[in-house]
C-alpha cells in the first residue's frame, strides 16, 4: 500500500477498472497501464461509470419537459448534480452553473455572448502566453469580426506570468482571460491578484480552470472570477460535459448563445422570450447522463477531500521532479516553476535530443502513457522555443512506483535517440 500525504493510492487505483486490466505489452507479456496523461483526460472510477449506467437502466428520460414520474426523477438527478457541482466550486447559486459540452464550448459561449455584445474596434482583450487554444482561438475568431485587439501577458524565464507591466497592459481592456493552471507548465497563476487589478481597471475576468478544478480546492468567489470554465473528462467525469460558472448578474446581462428548446419561455413567429438562468444558456437536450456522471465524480473527489488531493499531488510532484532529475540526469529539462508548491503535477519535459513523439513511443512499449505534442498551446511552444514537449501528468491514482518506471523508460528513450 502506497500512502502519500493522506491519499491511499492503492485503494484508489482499485476503483479504476482501466488501471486493473492486463494489456498486451511490447514483449507480448501482459502489463498494467501506467497512465500519466491525466492533464489530457483523466480515467474514471467505477462509481462514475456505474452512476451513468444506472441512470440509463433506471431513470432515463428527457428533463425539464415531462410531467411523468420518470422525467421528474431524471430532472431531479440532473438538478441534484448541478447543486453538488455548484458547492464543489463554491458557487453562490446553482443557477450560475451552466452545463456545456466541454470547457471549449464554455469559453466560446463567453466570447460569442459576452464578447459579441461588448467588444468593438476600440476594445481589447488581455490573455496570457500560456493559454490553451480554447482561450485563444474564440477571441481570434471574434476579433476578426469585431476588430478589437488581443494583448498577451508575457512569461518569465521559469514559466510564470510576468506581471510587471500588468497595469499598462490592462489599460483599455474589457476582459482578461487567464488559465488558473497551465496544462503545459503546471504553473498555478495568481488569479486573485490579476482579478483585483482587472476589476480596478474596469475589466471582467474569465478563468480557464480546466486544470485547476480537478486538482486544487477551488472557490470561485475567493478567486475573484467573474466567469470560470472547466471540463468534466479531466475531473474523473465523462466526456461530453463541461461547465461555465458565472456571476448571476453578469450571466443575466448576456444574450443567449445557442437557440432552441428549453432556453425559451415563448416562441412566436416574430421572436422569442428568453428563459431564466440556467436554462437560458442550455439549449436543447442537455448531456443528462454525463451531468449525473460528473455529479458522481465530484462526490468521489469530495469524499477524498480536495485538500488531500492537492497535498498528494504536491508531494508526488516533488518526488517526481527529484527522481527524474536524478535518474535521467543533466539531459532532462522540466519546463515551468521549479517549486512543487507553485505548480500542479504536470511535467513537460525535454529529454536530451530525443523528439517527444519518439520518447512517447518508447514509453508506450512499457505501457506508460504520456503525451507528446504541443498540448494545444502553440503560442506557448514558440515562447519555449520548442515544437513539442513530452508531458507526464499526475493524478490521484498515480504513485511513486509509476514515477520510478517513468524515469527508467525515459533513460532508455534518451539513450536510444542519442546521436
Amino acid at each position, binding site marked *: 500500500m502506497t500512502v502519500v500525504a493522506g491519499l491511499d493510492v492503492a485503494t484508489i487505483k482499485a476503483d479504476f477498472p482501466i488501471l486493473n486490466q492486463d494489456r498486451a505489452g511490447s514483449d507480448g507479456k501482459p502489463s498494467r497501464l501506467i497512465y500519466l496523461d491525466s492533464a489530457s483526460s483523466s480515467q474514471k472510477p467505477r462509481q462514475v461509470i456505474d452512476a451513468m449506467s444506472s441512470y440509463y437502466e433506471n431513470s432515463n428520460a428527457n428533463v425539464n419537459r415531462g410531467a411523468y414520474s420518470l422525467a421528474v426523477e431524471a430532472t431531479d438527478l440532473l438538478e441534484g448534480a448541478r447543486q453538488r457541482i455548484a458547492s464543489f466550486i463554491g458557487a453562490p447559486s446553482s443557477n450560475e452553473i451552466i452545463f456545456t459540452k466541454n470547457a471549449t464550448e464554455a469559453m466560446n459561449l463567453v466570447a460569442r455572448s459576452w464578447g459579441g455584445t461588448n467588444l468593438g474596434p476600440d476594445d481589447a482583450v488581455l490573455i496570457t502566453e500560456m493559454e490553451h487554444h480554447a482561450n485563444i482561438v474564440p477571441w481570434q475568431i471574434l476579433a476578426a469580426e469585431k476588430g478589437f485587439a488581443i494583448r498577451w501577458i508575457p512569461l518569465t524565464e521559469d514559466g510564470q506570468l510576468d506581471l510587471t507591466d500588468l497595469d499598462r497592459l490592462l489599460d483599455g481592456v474589457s476582459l482578461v482571460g487567464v488559465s488558473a493552471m497551465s496544462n503545459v507548465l503546471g504553473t498555478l497563476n495568481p488569479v486573485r491578484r490579476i482579478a483585483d487589478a482587472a476589476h480596478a481597471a474596469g475589466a471582467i475576468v474569465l478563468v480557464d480552470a480546466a486544470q485547476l478544478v480537478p486538482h486544487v480546492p477551488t472557490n470561485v468567489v475567493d478567486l475573484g472570477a467573474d466567469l470560470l470554465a472547466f471540463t468534466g473528462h479531466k475531473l474523473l467525469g465523462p466526456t461530453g460535459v463541461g461547465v461555465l460558472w458565472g456571476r448571476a448578474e453578469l450571466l443575466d446581462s448576456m444574450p443567449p448563445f445557442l437557440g432552441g428548446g428549453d432556453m425559451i419561455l415563448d416562441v412566436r413567429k416574430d421572436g422569442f422570450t428568453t428563459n431564466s438562468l440556467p436554462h437560458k444558456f442550455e439549449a436543447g437536450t442537455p448531456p443528462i447522463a454525463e451531468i449525473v456522471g460528473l455529479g458522481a465524480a465530484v462526490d468521489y473527489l469530495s469524499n477524498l477531500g480536495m485538500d488531500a488531493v492537492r497535498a498528494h499531488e504536491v508531494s508526488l510532484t516533488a518526488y517526481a521532479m527529484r527522481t527524474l532529475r536524478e535518474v535521467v540526469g543533466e539531459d532532462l529539462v522540466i519546463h515551468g516553476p521549479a517549486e512543487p508548491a507553485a505548480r500542479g503535477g504536470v511535467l513537460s519535459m525535454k529529454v536530451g535530443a530525443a523528439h517527444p*513523439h519518439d520518447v512517447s*513511443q518508447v514509453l508506450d*512499449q512499457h505501457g506508460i502513457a504520456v503525451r507528446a505534442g*504541443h498540448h494545444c498551446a502553440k503560442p506557448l*511552444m514558440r515562447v519555449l522555443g520548442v*515544437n*513539442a514537449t513530452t508531458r507526464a501528468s499526475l493524478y490521484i491514482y498515480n504513485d511513486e512506483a509509476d514515477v520510478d518506471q517513468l524515469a527508467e523508460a525515459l533513460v532508455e528513450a534518451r539513450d*536510444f535517440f542519442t546521436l
Partner: protein
Amino acid sequence: MPGLDDLYREIILDHYRSPRNRGELETPPAAKAEGFNPLCGDEIVVYVATETNNDGDEVVSDIAIGGQGCSISQASASMMSAAVKGKTLTEVANLTSSLKSMMSIEVEGTDAAVDSDVSLGDLQALSGVVKFPVRIKCATLAWNTLAEAVTPTD
C-alpha cells in the same frame, strides 16, 4: 504489440542522425510549402526547384528540407529528398503513391498514369511504420508537403 525495431530500422536512424539536403532554396525560382502535423506540432518545410529536361518533362533539379520533427518524419523527409532528386514529376508521383500504398493509405483521385508499383529502394525501411498507425502521418508529412510544393497554385 510490435517492437521498437520494427519502427526504428537502422537506415531510418541513420537518416535521422545525418539528414540529407537540410537547408533552404531561394524562392523563386524554387517553390516552397509548409506542412503541419497537428498531432505533435511538427512542422516541415520543403523547397523544390524543377527544370524541364530534354524530353520536355519537368524534373526535380534541387530540393531542401527545413523544419523540425520526430525521427520518423525527419528520416522520411531526408530519404525522400535523396530519392526524388533528378526524378521527373511523374516518377515522383509514382514513388509517392507507391509509398502511400505501402502505408495502406488509399490514394484518392489516382489517375491511370500513376503507377504504385515502382521500387522503393531505401524507402522500404519505412514499411514498419504501418504497424504504428499514429506514425503514418509522420512518415507521409514530407511527401504531402512536397506534393503541395509542386502543385501549381491558382
